């Protein structure tokens, strides 16, 4: 689909910030609520541009990482309900690549990650500590995947 979504949003932000925001300022003053609100809208559209580009990729990557981890985690937490659900989640695949479907499976996997993390914290074994470190690395990676550099990410 041309023009690209990213280009369309760039132009839209250009109109908003270059024309609409100054126009509101000239008409109503430069500190009015509406001017600030349109400025935030411009920032949000830049973020949307960034998110649009990566939305499916980051969810697919994260879901794959979580499933790989879950496949190895069952032996650490031992037999039981959590272990069975970890195994089932590890074997699943994302067949619907729409962002909403990927988001839904990501939420299920992250919910299971919380359960796994809490369970591992209670286990006193070297394997548990290794898995715990792996979980923290994944949580750091998940934070990096969600960063929005266009909004001044630090």
């Amino acid at each position, binding site marked *: 689909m041309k023009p690209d979504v990213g280009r369309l949003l760039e132009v839209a932000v250009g109109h908003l910030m270059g024309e609409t925001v100054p126009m509101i300022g000239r008409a109503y003053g430069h500190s*009015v609520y509406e001017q600030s*609100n349109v400025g935030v809208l411009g920032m949000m559209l830049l973020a949307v541009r960034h998110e649009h580009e990566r939305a499916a990729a980051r969810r697919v990557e994260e879901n794959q990482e979580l499933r790989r981890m879950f496949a190895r985690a069952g032996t650490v937490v031992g037999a039981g309900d959590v272990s069975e659900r970890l195994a089932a989640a590890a074997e699943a695949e994302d067949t619907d690549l729409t962002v909403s479907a990927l988001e839904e499976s990501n939420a299920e996997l992250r919910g299971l990650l919380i359960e796994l993390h809490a369970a591992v914290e209670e286990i006193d074994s070297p394997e548990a500590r290794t898995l715990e470190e792996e979980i923290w690395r994944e949580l750091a990676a998940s934070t990096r995947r969600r960063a929005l550099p266009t*909004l001044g990410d630090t």
Partner: protein
Amino acid sequence: MADDSAGADGASGLESRLAAYLAEKLPDASDVRVDGLERIFGGASRETYRFVLRTHRDGEDESRRLILRRDPPGSLIETDRAVEYAAYRAFYGTAVPVPEALWLEEDGNRLDYPFFIMEELAGLQSSAQAAAPHAAKLTPQKWSILGEISKADPAALGLDNVMAAVAADECWQRELSYWENEIDRHELCPQPIARAAIRWLRRHPPPPAQRVSVVHADYRTGNYLFDEEGTIRGILDWEMAHLGDPLEDLAWGLNPVWQSADGRVGAIATREEAISIWEEASGLRADPEALHWWELFSSVKGQAIWVSSAKEFTDGKNQDLILALAGWLMGNRQDRAILAAMGHHVS
């Protein structure tokens, strides 16, 4: 959603209804008018408007710049406006500078939602960019004023009548449970980082508070006003104020999400400066382990606020874009802060 451009007496007639309310409150004045009513950006838990009150009294025309703080249809955080109003009234005229609070109206029929009115501290600044050039002058004021809040006697201020009592050894549990519950109620997707932090906080409780103090609970850049000389003229946004451990306030001010790129807390001070000034002004000690607990807690609380902002926006209760921005930008920054506080860094 309530009208944003209420000036010129927009569709809801907010200007004229506000004038009618004020005329009742000022029975000895005539020709009571409200001019230039306009909404101020920010303040997602209250709608904030500035206006000029014009009256005729004792043969003289008078005017005063005022602020209207009105509950929105949906709020970033659910707060008690009566407590906020009481905090302004209690600290007015003390070493903690605040604007004069004038009228509280809890009847939602007058202006669609409950509200209160206070004086406007006009022409002042509060952003991080504006604060940075005045860092040397603002730093001792900002952290010593916080020390004064921590030192103040809630009973002497009359705030023990409006703020819920809490024992020194229960402050942490009450706050942690409250904000965990906010995440439970409002999360739109799982929060594995905040949940890990909550588990750690419960396994490693802090010592009892050195004293139970008034906690402002949102003491940060953006919530204080200073003049062009760098003198702080007002501490604002007491909407989350409560009784609790004073380290909660210190930790919130140190939260990494308010830091500048060079690591200065609140964009003006080094961490060591801020703590030292607060300790001297409050007469309290910031035990490093206890402070660490409260700093990690402050990031959980922050995440609860950003989660709630995303929920409010998504549900359509409050479609102020600042809520969406908070959900996207601040939520990610807060996760980074939690990870760092727990010894795990995002490369």
